[in-house]
């Protein structure tokens, strides 16, 4: 079975686009082949800074033949129908058609055979189109011979439509396309890249500096081997392995340990075709700068790794650089050059760090008055003021000192105005803590600066220190209520203000810290602190639901997602959330847990079935009678012993449930509810609801309604599945 090899050789592809481009190439080509009836055994895509490559093995040499049958009119049908059929099927005369018999009689049938085409031909046809429409995040034209041009079409006088005829991520230089079985010299499929003068061949180039001339290749193994000889490691994962293991070994030889960084490793592997790992050094005095800042400087600006001393865990004054060259001087110039730049960068960082500490955080605050947080939500200063007041109000709930919570909230964002954070936004919060500690500010307050941004993602730590928790909640609640008030809610995949993350953050903080947070009350308070909205929407468009209730609904959805990820049933969350006044996350979760346990018992399952049965009967009869049976049943009209027993049991259970709920003992509430199971079962067993006596029937329907109502003390059973 033949193999296909494709290479698109270009100028440097941005590292961040490489993986996706390789995946896209593989998917687009294999999908197109399969659509053309060409099934393959395996496919693998590769990418380096200068090339995208794809190998597909085990392709058939040609497409299967296709036989198409087209049913025509009845034998003896009017000539018009026959002519139409011949035209549609592409036949010259009716004698070319076959006659087929079925139970309705004899029909004409046209059989056309489509010969499968050679795979090579199909490939030559599909790939140019794939290249033309290739989904690069951003692509370009280039000049010169072979560069695609811009066609300007005049559609009407004065209206020019510009058509980019071909574009690529960076100038494309050559294309390899070979096809053939393993044992033979593969053929070149010489398609032309549209609107360029590039014609696919079997030749490419190796490393820009460490190789010269063109290389002719056959298929994947030969291609990879020849590239390797021309100083190109084709496989990005292998480049990563080389970098990682060399970096670790070099570190080890110096008694140090590599600070691993997967994202940096991935990026660096996309910047080199031939990784050469080296170690460089900077002056020890830079180690006074916080380690996070050193790391950010070296990582972001220089794409280098940092090292630490395994004994102390502290950063070492060394770094790992990955070059793309086995230099003729052994790499001395490269090391010296990189060290020089890192030294300059660290001097800047040190200067920033020293300068920042000369200004107190408090003294920076007035500047926030000039910074807009959001056009409709006022300045940063106004927002900080709101957060501070809210943090103070939340303090008793989270058992924090209100004055400390307020002060922490006021200072928590101050580091945004420092030089270091201006340069490296990812150390925001952390720098605030360092600067606050350097000023001698209370540790609890200082730490809130870092902690209040947490949790950032599903794997991030949740703050637990009370002052930090107060500020974290206030910050997130102000964000959410603010954007809710101006109707900037997340839609679909769009969530530019990361509001889902903020809500999930509040959920995790509340649950992990077992905080009894009355969300609706808190939302109302936060909403009332927002600037007055002047441009009210049309009354017609105004939602009938208040923003705080809408926001609570959003929390319900987030909670469902969160609990589902934790293994809970989403319908149970719905069943609890449907009850009135459920805005306390801790209670909701405890209730869901108790409900889940209850429904696993026999009593629970049967009571659920009984309640659903009651609800079903009720809804059918209510529909039939066009009225609802929501009032109390008349005790004097209860006749059967089972219905009397049920009525009594409901009353008793409700009393018990209410008492248990008052103590927030959901287990006990469920246990009390379980006592209904036997009377409910007995009732359905022995009593006929639709009694002939109208009054009796009505009274029984009211009793059914009582079952439904009673269970609503713990959950809305109608929302539970099963």
């Amino acid at each position, binding site marked *: 079975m033949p193999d296909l090899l494709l290479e698109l050789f270009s*100028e440097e592809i*941005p590292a961040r686009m490489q993986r996706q481009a390789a995946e896209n190439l593989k998917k687009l080509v294999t999908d197109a082949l399969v659509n053309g009836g060409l099934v393959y055994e395996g496919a693998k895509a590769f990418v380096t800074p200068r090339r995208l490559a794809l190998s597909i093995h085990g392709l058939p040499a040609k497409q299967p033949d296709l036989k198409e049958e087209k049913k025509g009119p009845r034998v003896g049908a009017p000539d018009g129908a026959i002519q139409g059929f011949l035209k549609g099927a592409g036949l010259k005369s009716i004698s070319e058609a076959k006659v087929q018999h079925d139970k309705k009689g004899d029909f004409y049938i046209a059989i056309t055979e489509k010969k499968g085409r050679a795979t090579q031909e199909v490939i030559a046809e599909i790939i140019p189109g794939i290249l033309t429409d290739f989904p690069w995040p*951003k692509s370009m034209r280039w*000049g*010169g011979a072979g*560069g695609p041009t811009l066609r300007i079409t005049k559609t009407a006088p004065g209206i020019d439509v510009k058509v980019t005829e071909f574009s690529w991520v*960076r*100038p494309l230089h050559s294309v390899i396309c070979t096809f053939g079985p393993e044992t033979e010299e593969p053929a070149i499929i010489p398609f032309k890249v549209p609107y360029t003068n590039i014609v696919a061949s079997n030749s490419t180039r190796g490393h820009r*500096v460490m190789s010269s001339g063109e290389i002719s290749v056959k298929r994947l193994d030969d291609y990879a081997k020849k590239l390797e000889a021309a100083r190109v490691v084709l496989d990005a994962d292998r480049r990563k392995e080389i970098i990682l293991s060399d970096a670790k070994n070099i570190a080890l030889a110096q008694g140090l340990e590599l600070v691993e960084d997967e994202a940096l490793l991935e990026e660096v592997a996309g910047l080199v075709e031939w990784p050469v790992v080296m170690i460089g050094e900077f002056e020890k005095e830079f180690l006074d700068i916080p380690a996070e800042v050193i790391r950010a400087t070296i990582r972001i600006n220089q794409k280098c790794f940092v090292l630490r001393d395994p004994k102390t865990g502290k950063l070492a004054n060394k770094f790992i650089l990955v070059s793309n060259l086995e230099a003729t001087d052994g790499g001395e110039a490269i090391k010296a050059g990189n060290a020089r730049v890192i030294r300059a960068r660290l001097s800047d960082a040190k200067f920033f760090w020293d300068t920042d500490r000369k200004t107190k955080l408090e003294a920076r605050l007035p500047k926030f008055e000039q910074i807009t947080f959001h056009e409709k939500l006022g300045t940063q200063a106004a927002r900080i003021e709101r957060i501070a007041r809210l943090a103070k109000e939340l303090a008793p709930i989270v058992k924090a000192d209100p004055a400390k919570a307020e002060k922490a909230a006021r200072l928590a964002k101050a580091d945004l105005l420092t030089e270091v954070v201006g340069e490296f936004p990812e150390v925001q919060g952390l720098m605030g803590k360092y600067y606050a500690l350097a000023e001698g500010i209370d540790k609890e307050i200082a730490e809130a600066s870092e902690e209040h941004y947490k949790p950032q993602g599903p794997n991030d730590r949740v703050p637990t220190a009370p002052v930090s928790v107060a500020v974290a909640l206030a910050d997130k609640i102000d964000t959410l209520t603010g954007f809710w008030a101006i109707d900037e809610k997340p839609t679909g995949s769009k969530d530019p203000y990361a509001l889902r993350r903020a809500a999930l953050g509040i959920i995790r903080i509340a649950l992990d810290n077992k905080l009894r947070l009355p969300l609706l009350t808190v939302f109302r308070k936060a909403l009332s602190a927002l600037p007055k909205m002047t441009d009210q929407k049309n009354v017609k468009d105004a939602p009938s639901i208040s923003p705080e209730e809408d926001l609570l609904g959003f929390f319900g959805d987030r909670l469902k997602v969160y609990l589902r990820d934790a293994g809970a049933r989403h319908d149970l969350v719905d069943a609890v959330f449907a009850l009135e006044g459920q805005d306390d996350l801790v209670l909701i979760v405890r209730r869901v847990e108790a409900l889940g346990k209850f429904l696993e018992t026999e009593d629970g399952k049967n009571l659920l079935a009984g309640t659903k049965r009651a609800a079903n009967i009720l809804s059918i009869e209510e529909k039939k009678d066009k009225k609802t049976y929501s009032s109390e049943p008349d005790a004097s009209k209860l006749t059967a012993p089972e219905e009397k027993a049920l009525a009594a049991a409901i009353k008793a259970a409700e009393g018990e449930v209410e008492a248990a709920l008052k103590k927030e003992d959901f287990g006990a509430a469920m246990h009390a509810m379980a006592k209904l199971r036997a009377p409910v079962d007995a009732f359905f067993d022995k009593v006929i609801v639709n009694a002939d006596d109208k009054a009796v029937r009505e009274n029984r329907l009211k009793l059914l309604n009582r079952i439904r109502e009673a269970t609503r003390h713990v959950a809305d059973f109608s929302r539970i599945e099963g």
Partner: protein
Amino acid sequence: MSDKNDPLSPARSFQGLILALQNFWAKQGCVILQPYDMEMGAGTFHPATTLRALGPKPWNVAYVQPSRRPKDGRYGENPNRLQHYYQYQVILKPSPPNLQELYLQSLAAIGIDAKVHDIRFAEDDWESPTLGAWGLGWECWCDGMEVSQFTYFQQVAGFECAPVSGELTYGLERLAMYVQGVENVYDLNFNGLEGDKKVTYGDVFLQAEKEYSKHNFELADTEMLFQQFKMAESACTKYLEAGWKDGSREEHLMALPAYDQCIKASHVFNLLDSRGVISVTERQSYILRVRELAKACGAAWLKTEGGRA
């Protein structure tokens, strides 16, 4: 390459570095222009780039452009930041297929050998909101240091570039510091001589950096500048309107003088910005106003001798 002891060796003098680049690009067939005689933020503003990048005519040019970034002034106290520095600008239109190779050869011409130094092309998309221009390309790294910008122009003054120009911009001071092995820009050897005859970059520019920093941040007459902005803006519009030959919109005769006023407006805006008298929201609208001028100049240029087929 020239002898290392030659004062005009790129490794010994700032002017030697410039001369080596001039020679290299002259040999590639570029027109070697002198700097444009107006204040501008980057070599891209030179009409030899902005306007000549538009239209179908081939154009190969190289020049040094003094570039003014009023906000980057540091009173001569920062070893790397200047409010006035030099860019070396190369435009090749259409961009040749071997532009990257040419670039590497130009580095070799100033003593940076790609077999010894790690030269890398790192993603950097270029955009100039004031010029209504964008392109794709890289920042070029030499041993971890950014030494040039490399851009394939896609759009200039709001018009698609056809053909595409390749633009190379070398930061001359930074490159010179690297090849001379100097840590402070003011220590650069300017003329390549030693002892009494040595002239440093600081000898030439330190005083200017101090004076202009004070000017840019503290003293530049903002009232005058606000007026100048308005005047340049209205003059530009006036010249553009008056430049149409015979009143029909087929041929334009005043694109270059009009564009000078766009350059002027842009620099005046930069000064106002460094004086801190333009708020965040106003800033955006000033940028848009300059862009409108640039676009109108580009449109006019396309109807001139130089901009037409």
